[in-house]
């Protein structure tokens, strides 16, 4: 076990725990955005930052993906931590003022100024990318980043609809609502920040209700090696 203090309260946690997990144990709340407990931490939103003192040195670190260390002193509400977090909120707010979650954070941290022009709901937190890759296993979302030789002006997300099985996980994990999914008239529509895709839904042969996208049935068929007729009925009629 590793012993550390958070806001001057002592806690001991497992060796591989993160600062965020240690704080949870003490019921100390650290705001997060890109973090999702079902997935490995991403570290992209920079909202969860805290001040950590180790070996006399004060550092600003992201709580979600920084491991605990023996004797570490963590401050979640020190002036330095709040300033760093406030800047992260401010910059998110200026990019994505339309997102309710971010407006709430901005209000909490007293951010009012709106300083930039690029507006979108997607904050490039990468939750969807990681969820589709690590949870669904389809790897259908590619984050295109910038780089010296990359020729991109801004990061963007591209959906590969040859791989997508229309499961909706990405829409479910998206913290801002930039990815949306809804079913209507036998069709499932996936709205991403840059594209729109329709998937045909399968009709149950017994009750006639739509129950599963065609692509997903095919995917399951292949994966389970069950005959096609096993996928003709919905859960209720099976």
């Amino acid at each position, binding site marked *: 076990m590793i012993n550390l203090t958070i806001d001057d309260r002592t806690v001991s946690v497992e060796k591989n725990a993160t600062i965020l997990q240690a704080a949870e144990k003490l019921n100390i709340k650290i705001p997060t955005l890109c973090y999702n407990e079902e997935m490995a931490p991403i570290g*992209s939103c920079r909202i969860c930052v805290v001040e950590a003192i180790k070996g006399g040195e004060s550092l600003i670190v992201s709580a979600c993906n920084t491991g605990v260390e023996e004797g570490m002193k963590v401050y979640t509400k020190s002036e330095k931590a709040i300033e760093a977090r406030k800047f992260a909120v401010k*910059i998110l707010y200026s990019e994505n003022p339309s997102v309710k979650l971010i407006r709430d954070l901005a209000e909490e941290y007293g951010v009012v100024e709106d300083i930039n022009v690029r507006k979108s709901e997607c904050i490039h937190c990468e939750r969807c990318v990681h969820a589709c890759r690590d949870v669904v296993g389809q790897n259908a979302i590619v984050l295109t980043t*910038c780089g010296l030789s990359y020729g991109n002006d801004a990061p963007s997300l591209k959906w590969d609809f040859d791989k997508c099985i229309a499961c909706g996980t990405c829409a479910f994990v998206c913290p801002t609502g930039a990815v949306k999914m809804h079913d209507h008239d036998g069709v499932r529509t996936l709205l991403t920040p840059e594209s729109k895709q329709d998937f045909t839904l399968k009709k149950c042969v017994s009750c006639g209700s739509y129950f599963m996208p065609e692509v997903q049935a095919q995917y399951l068929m292949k994966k389970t090696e069950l005959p096609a007729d096993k996928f003709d009925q919905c859960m209720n009629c099976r």
Partner: protein
Amino acid sequence: MANAIFSTWNNKVLDGRYNGTTYSAEEVGLPLTYGEDKEFKAIFGWNGIVLTDDSSNIVSLAADYFRTVALIACGECNVGYNGVHLIKTILDNLVAGTAVPADIARLKECIEGVSINTKCSFCSSAVKPIADCLRYFSAEFEAAAEEHAAYEPSNGLLNVTAPCIEACPIHQDVPGYIGHIKNHNYDEAINLIKRNNPLPGCTGRACMAFCEKNCIRNEIDAPVSIRKLKRVAYDFGTPNELVVEKKKKDEVAIIGAGPAGIAAAKRLLSLGYNVVAYDLNNVCGGMMNDGIPSYRLPREIIKADFDEMIALGAEYRVSTPVRDIEDISSHYKATIICTGAYASKSNGIEGWTEGENDMLQGVRYLKSINNKKTMELKNSVLVVGGGNTAIDCARTALRAGSRDVTIIYRRSRAEMPANAEEIDEAEIEGVKLDLLALPVKIEVEENGIKKVTCQKMQLGEPDESGRRRPVPVPGSEYVINCDMILSAIGEKPDVSFLNNKVELTDWGTIKVDKNGATSMKGVFAAGDCVNGPASIVEAMASGKRAAIGAVMYLDGKTTVSNEKEEVFEPFHKEFLKHNLDNTYNYARERQHARMIDRNVLLDNFNEVEQVLTKKQAVQEADRCLKCYKVILVTRN
């Protein structure tokens, strides 16, 4: 000699702007001149600002520097990307004369925010000189925000590098292609690699990876598996077809179709020259084909890399030994010698009969097996030496059917020049190590068995190479019996075909100047025949240099064509350094490739190391901290 009037380099503040003090290069900790005493005017880089006079416009320098920073900021974290772009916009407005006074406070806020809270270390460290600007040049910045006057650009020269890029002899954009892999963009990754590497397949499998030795993660946990990621890009990516300009210029001859030869060929082809390469072997690849065993580097990988050069228009005349340099040099305006290091150093063992009684130089043994010559099977094999050649001989002998294979080396394991991973692999496969021992005498018995008298050694004082010198332990002789002895104690160039017409160094390598030119007019040399036995990637770097030398010679130029190289050469040491700044970097496990099962009989030469899975590759790529260093210099 230039002196600085101001410096913040490496957090050491020297300010003589108001009192006339000047500071030497030593005091600043950075070179202030380049080439033959040419002076820098301003140095504006990731680690600070240095000025040698007061004529620079600091705002223009900042804006020009930062435009490149903004190109690199990847977009994987909110504060880094958005913060950097806000800073860039403000700096651009300042030089365009469109900024407002409030922008200065905003700039300050952004710099503070970015410098402490980013996902990787790039953006947070790249804002450092801008922070210095606001601290020491606030008057200039405030004036720029008030005057609304457009500023002249700095006309500086920019360089982008990283500790790994700088350590790589051919300067591969390591964080660049790793970034592509992280985004599953294997095609772009391999395209980027191929820009300055004509052997992407071979280096992905067998490169000595100097980059990894200087990866900043060595200070945190373990280096990023850069070589294995290169292989990921090669195995999973489909590169664009290479195209070169239509040929119009002279034909250049290359002797030797190894890594140095292919790199020279590619550079020449891309500059519009025709290339004819001669090799005594019937296949291309040089020592990669003759020395490196196929379980480490499958032959189809070598072939693919060379086929691409043939498709580009290089002509390879194989099975054509060159017996006298003038047979070639008299027919071409320029010739590049890339004949490698094929001769072996003598081992000084009493009773050694090279090529007879199953006593053989290691590289000759490897060359025979690698080229599928049948050899009589010997059960017990003793390999003398501690380098990669010794390891390759031992592991090859096992695969050829020998069951009792021992490496004998005169120092301890820690001093073995072979790559530590390779030594482990050999042991896993069943090779025995007899350390701190030296064979001194061989006697051949009637039945062909060799009785090898060995001497136990102990480590004494360090020698010139820094390794502790082995000294004999008196009265410790013992005898080993074996069927075959391979000597792998080092190679040197075979220069017999030069017939004393080209000057050599004291070490028996070909003597060249910095452009690769030998003492013979129009004849250049590169690779192991110049460096002594080295590596694939060093041979490529040297081949490229010689190709440029040859082109300069053909064009009648004497000055270095690569100005950028000359200007940034003095910063090499600074580029190699690890600046692990304010970002806290947590340990993350290095990914290991799957190896084939070695618990079964090793009776084949199948590739041992498998490619990382895509999932592993993403995790490994995620360990890279993007240690790009951007620097802008202006000159007098």
